[in-house]
């Protein structure tokens, strides 16, 4: 009886020890990929050529992230300008001097479910990791 208990205890610890770091690594990597994607979208969107981040760019970004293992339906993009106007409209780009704000978020899902094995309360699945930034637009009308 005692041996069975010890076996169960040790095997769950061993299981957690082997796989939990992998899932933590996945979480860090996903966060980093979201951040790189946000950096890229801001760099392109705030450039003098565009001045906006529209639905097309977001669709392309979803496809890029899909190829990295994200579920595109769960990705959420939040685009706005620092003066409160819409930054997703290609007809009315954000002018130079105003910032474009972008936040991409993605749920953690069951990445930390293994923490239950050692009695830790895992991060809830609906919690979202997010990455983003604010960059000043370079768009000058009529150039």
């Amino acid at each position, binding site marked *: 009886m005692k041996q069975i208990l010890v076996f169960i205890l040790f095997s769950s*610890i061993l299981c957690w020890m082997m796989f939990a770091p992998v899932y933590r690594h996945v979480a860090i990597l996903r966060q980093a990929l979201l951040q790189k994607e946000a950096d890229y979208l801001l760099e392109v969107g705030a450039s003098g050529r565009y001045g906006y981040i529209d639905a097309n760019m977001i669709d392309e970004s979803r496809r890029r992230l899909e190829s990295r293992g994200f579920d595109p339906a769960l990705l959420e993009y939040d685009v706005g300008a620092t003066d409160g106007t819409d930054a997703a409209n290609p007809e009315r780009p954000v002018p*130079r001097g105003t910032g474009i704000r972008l936040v991409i978020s993605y749920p953690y899902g069951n990445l930390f479910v293994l923490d239950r094995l050692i009695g830790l309360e895992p991060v809830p699945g609906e919690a979202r990791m997010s990455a983003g*930034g*604010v*960059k000043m637009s370079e768009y000058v009308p009529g150039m």
Partner: protein
Amino acid sequence: MGKFLLFVLLLVFHMRLMALQLDEERAMHLVFELKHAVNRAVHAAAQQTDPHLLSMGIRAIDEARAEAVFHEYLQANLHLDGTGRPAPGSPLREPVDVVAFDVINADRSFPCRYRNEEHQLDVTFYGPGVVAVIRAEYPRTYRFIGPVRWTVKGAAELLAGG
């Protein structure tokens, strides 16, 4: 008993490695985030053209506005409050110090070489621009790595056409 001891030792060793790896990986991504925040802040600051001088045909930077906008963008990108302390949602735990902020304005002759011995910064400007250096500390999850303090530098020029 021997096996048990070995198991515990292995556990400790493994946890240590895991913690080290986790912290180093996070630190590496965070330093990029800081660099991008500084880049965006100096970029925004360098776009603050002085409208009064522009009307006389001189492209110069409004220094007071540049500094205000620099702080505004740094705070927005790193989720800091008005005093440089991390607000909720910030990747940092310690306040960020802006140790250098300089505007290279239109009164210099270009190309202008900006040097800062203290922070080992050397930039050549071909037009008016802004340089900034910040200091930030990595929020360690575990104490297996020593404290990591970064000096992050950034420079931007006033864009042509502005």
